[in-house]
Each structure stands twice: as C-alpha cells, then as structure tokens.
C-alpha cells in the first residue's frame, strides 16, 4: 500500500503550469471545441450532444487547456509511444556509397497527466511484444522518458469493459501513479519511483494530509463504484474465450460476428493495443531519404498480400477473425496478456455496428455453454423504434 497525497484542483493545474514552465512536455486530455461536422465548423454551437465533445491527448501549451472532466480522448496514448509514422533511420547516397544516419533512441523526460487507466494499461500489454527478445529501443526509449499519471475513470458508457480483460478504471498498470477525485481536489497515489519523483520535484503542490477516514475513504469509494459500474457491462472468462478461439478457428460463429465489417481499420487506429506496423522507404530528394514505420491494420486487404499475388487472408471475415484471434487468443497464449484493455473505442467508432461487447459475450457463451451459442442470444431485446 503506497503513500497517499492530496493535491487540490488549482494545485493540479499549477503542477501542469510548473512542469511546462520548466520546459517539460506535458501531455493531457484537451477538449477541442471544434465539432466534427460541417454544420458546426462555423462559430455556431456544436449540434451534437455535449457529452460527445471531442477530447484528444495533446501536448499542452498552457495549463488552462487541461481537461479534467474525464471524458475519453478519441485516440489513445499509443501515438505518443508508437507514432503514426516514425523515422527508423535515414540515408544519404553518393554514387555507390551509402551513409545511414541513426535516429535518437533517448527522449526528453515528459509527463502524461490525467491518462485513462485503459490507455496506460495498454502500454504495459504492448511492452511484452516490444521486448520479447529483440528490444525495440524506440518504444522503450519513449516509455522510459515518460511519467504517466492516471486519473480514475468514472466509466464512459456501456461499451467499456476494462474489468473483463484484466484491468480496471482505477488501475495503475503501465502507469506511475493514480489521481482519484475527492472534495476539493484529488488523492494521488504514486505507484513507481517515477510516480514518487513527481512529488519530490513538486513538493509545494502536494500535501501528505490524506485522512484515511475522510478523503481516503472518499477516494476508495469512488474507485470501487467505478469498478462496479464497468463490471456490470461485461463479464467473461478470458481463459475460456482464449481456448475456444484457439480450437474453433473455422467455426462459422466467427464469420457471422464479422458480417457487417467494412474492413476500414478505424478500430485498429483508435485501439490502444493494436501495434501492427508497416515499414516503408521514402525517397525525399536526390540521394537521400528516410525509412519509416507507420501504423498498419490487419483489416486492410493488402496486409498479408504476397508479391506473387497470393493472399492468405483475402476476405473480410477472415481478416476480422484474425483481429479477434490475435487479441483474445494468440497474444494471451504467447505473452500471457489479452491484447485489449476494454476501452470500448472500437465499438464506438465502428459505424457499421460491430460491437466487441456483443462479440465477446457471444464467444464467452459459446465457450461456456456450447448449447446456447447463437450471436442473436447476445443481442438485447429489440428496442422500440
């Protein structure tokens, strides 16, 4: 049980300001008041319900931008550790001589404030593949340079299911400390040396007075309530699901569950744990260029296309199966972790109606009660239209 500290609302913003003032990059949720529809790009009000105001993780330019309303950023923290595109090396060519230029693998220290626990947990999950024998210096360098402070999540909506896949709305997996809202501010619990160093370097902002029976209990209650809310969304036996998928590769259930999918890959872009990437050379002038890696998606038809024209996964339901397989069977078998932290973004962003809560429910049923396996059984009663 680690120490607990109190930091007031204004001190938390002050902490952000102090860090920025010292030249430290601070990444945090920022609410963008530009709504994503043409009718609202103008200065007129956003037409969508304000609970859907867009939030993104951004590098703060001022502490005022820090959004602590605990909404879900559109994209996860993934892009800060595995950028959408990243130089691996560059080269200069003169005649037949080539000089390869290295890229830095050490990065300036930076802080993430008010991260979603599902996003931080995802980083620890992906750490496994980035280190299973070859160590990915670029990923590791960014991980080492970053202090991540989570903010206990109240649960976003009924597409959240972090507790079903081994994490929780108040987890510190992959992170260095946890803030939980209480009256007047937050209780802060450091979980690692980096989390403690944040206090050491900013003592004025934190106070050690956290009464166990008042603020302490308030924090505990808040955390427990969040966990209960999320657990109500989905409960699965992740090991049964893993084993069922591993032994039912050709099962028609997996095709039925994939039927709506367009193969757009939006799910893989917004996913905090999807890490598949492509490597491309980009000629940028005569005799010089950059080799980059960039996000790729197993949902794209060309993902597994051989130069010969042969494609082992040449239809969408087969590619969709790969996604489910990779996340809930292959990765757990190889690394002992589900490649998913239940953030629910894939379900929310899928405008074709693919619903991971429904899919996991159907597979869980198939795994535990084979006689009941029917995707329709997982759907709710038909809503009155």
């Amino acid at each position, binding site marked *: 049980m680690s120490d607990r500290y109190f930091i007031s609302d204004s001190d938390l913003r002050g902490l952000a300001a102090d860090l920025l003032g010292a030249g430290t990059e601070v990444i945090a949720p920022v609410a963008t008041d530009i709504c994503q529809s043409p009718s609202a790009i103008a200065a007129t009000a956003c037409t969508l319900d304000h609970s859907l105001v867009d939030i993104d993780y951004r590098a703060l330019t001022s502490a005022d931008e820090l959004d602590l309303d605990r909404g879900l950023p559109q994209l996860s923290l993934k892009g800060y550790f595995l950028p959408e595109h990243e130089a*691996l*090396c560059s*080269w200069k*060519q003169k005649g*037949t*001589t*080539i000089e*390869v230029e*290295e*890229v830095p*693998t050490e990065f300036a220290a930076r802080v993430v404030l008010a991260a979603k626990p599902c996003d931080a947990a995802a980083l620890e999950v992906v750490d496994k*593949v*980035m280190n*299973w*024998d*070859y*160590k*990915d*210096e*670029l990923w590791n360098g960014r991980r080492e340079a970053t202090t991540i402070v989570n903010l206990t999540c109240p649960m976003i909506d009924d597409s959240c299911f972090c507790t079903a896949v081994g994490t929780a709305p108040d987890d510190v997996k992959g992170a260095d400390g946890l803030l939980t809202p209480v009256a007047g501010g937050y209780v802060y619990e450091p979980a690692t040396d980096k989390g403690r160093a944040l206090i050491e370097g900013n003592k004025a902002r934190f106070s050690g007075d956290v009464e166990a029976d008042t603020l302490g209990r308030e924090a505990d209650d808040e955390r427990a309530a969040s966990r209960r809310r999320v657990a109500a969304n989905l409960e699965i036996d992740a090991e049964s699901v893993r084993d069922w998928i*591993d032994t039912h*590769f*050709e099962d028609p259930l997996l095709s039925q569950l994939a039927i709506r999918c367009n193969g757009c890959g939006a799910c893989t872009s917004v996913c905090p744990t999807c*890490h*598949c*990437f*492509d*490597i*491309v*050379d980009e*000629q940028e002038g005569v005799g010089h*260029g950059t*080799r980059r*890696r960039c996000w*790729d998606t*197993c949902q794209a038809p060309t*993902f*597994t*296309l*051989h*130069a*010969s024209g*042969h494609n*082992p*996964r040449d239809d969408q339901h*087969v590619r969709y199966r*790969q996604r489910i*397989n*990779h996340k809930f*069977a*292959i990765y757990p*078998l*190889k690394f002992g972790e589900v490649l998913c932290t239940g953030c629910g973004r894939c379900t929310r962003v899928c405008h074709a109606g693919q619903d991971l809560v429904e899919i996991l429910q159907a597979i869980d049923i198939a795994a535990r009660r084979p006689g009941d396996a029917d995707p329709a059984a997982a759907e709710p009663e038909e809503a009155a239209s």
Partner: protein
Amino acid sequence: MNIYQPLLTTVTEVVDETADTRTLRLEFQDEALRKDFSFKAGQFGEYSVFGAGESTFCIASSPTREGYIECSFKAIGKVTTELREVNIGDTVGFRGPYGNWFPVDDWKGKDVVFVAGGIGLAPVRCVIWNVLDRRDEFGDVTIVYGARSVDDLVYKRELEEWGSRADVKMVTTVDPGGETKDWTGEVGYVTPVVEKTAPKADNAVAVVCGPPIVVKLTLPVLEQLGFADDAVFTTLENRMKCGLGKCGRCNIGPVYVCKDGPVFTAAQMKALPAEF
C-alpha cells in the same frame, strides 16, 4: 542504432540464374562483421535497396562459408525489381539473421533427402552445402530438384557439381514440355520423380521447399515412403516486414513465421490453421 537499422553490405558477385531470378553475393562493409558474422542454415534476412525498401529472403549460402552471404530471389515486386538492377560495388542493406534454423546437428549419421522446386531451391541450397561441407558426418545424400523448364533451373553450375560427386545422388527434372533436345535429366513433375527415386525413409530426414503446390503434393509421397512427420522439414514464407516479431504481420494462427519459423516440421505445419 536501433534494431530496424540495416547493416551495410557490398555486392561482390551477381549471377542471373534465369530470366527473372538472380543471386547476389554480399560482403559486409564493416571489417569486424565480415569476420564475425555467423548464422545457421535456414535463417533469413531483410535485404534493402535504400529508397525502395526491404525484402525477405533466406540466406542462401552455407554458414560454413565465411566472409560473405548470398541471397537468391525472383524479381516480382517493388524491391526485388530494384535488386535486379544492382551491380557489383553497389550497397545493399541487411538485417538479420532472423528466425529459426534447420537442426542440422541432429541429423548426424542420418541420410538426408532434399526435395525442391523452382526458386525453392534457394533455402535448401544453404543446407545442402552445409551438409556437403561436413560430408562425412552424414549418411546418403539425395537431391531431387525440378523446375518448369531447363531455363528455369537455378544454381545450374552447382547442379552439375552436385551431379558429378560420387557421394551425392542428384536427380534433376523439368516439367513435361520444359526439356530441351539435349536434356539428359528426368522429365516430370517433382512429386512423381520423388516417388520414382524412392529415397529410403529409415534413419533419414527430408527437407522440402518450393511453391506451395510442390510442398503440398510432396508431403504425402514422403509419408507413404515412410518418413515420419517430424523427420520432414520445410521452410515457409509469408509476407514480412520487421522480420523480428513485432509488426504483427506474418503470423499463421499463433505462430509467428519470423520467430517460430520459417523452418517447420511437417508435423508442425499440419497443426497450423489454414491461413497461409
């Protein structure tokens, strides 16, 4: 330096095996690397043409030959088309060696049978030389190799060399219609020629590589001849990018071809889901 940064090699030899297949001999530009670089038969690398990208091929030379590595490829895509244009003295990038390897040491005292089709001879050639360079450690060596036509045969000089050795049984074949007037080898698809050659399965291992159809049809023939599933080895290819288990592209079910492969026994292959 990060794991994705390639080492630099210089092209020292170029052999155009067929109209669209080429072999390159590469020497590391770094002197220490030239001496120290080692690998095992069956491993592969990522070869780059800077500006075009990387492509995945096995290391086609034997680990018993020091100071250089070789690769053979068919010009079929963006990078291989560029590789077909490189000349002696040009720089080619290399990352590797990656993947697992043929357990050649386990085969001491056994007979070794090699079956290959077309460009599939490239990874097998590596093992053939590995075995021949340590010839007295092994029993009988049989090689059955076929291609569509006489022109399509790769490593033509070496086929002759192997054929002229008393301690190797070399059977070369071309598909019906692919023979030339003065062709003295077999005529027929690889699989029936393997059947005809009927290598003994007792205390033997087999290495099979080639286009999927050759592998698919040859495995049952070897099974009929008495080869156990774990005595038959093949090497699979799949689309790869990082080559070292991170980019998530080459998996066949739970098996990452770049790490758990590319060398598999027939038993392991049969356990793979139908995704390759």
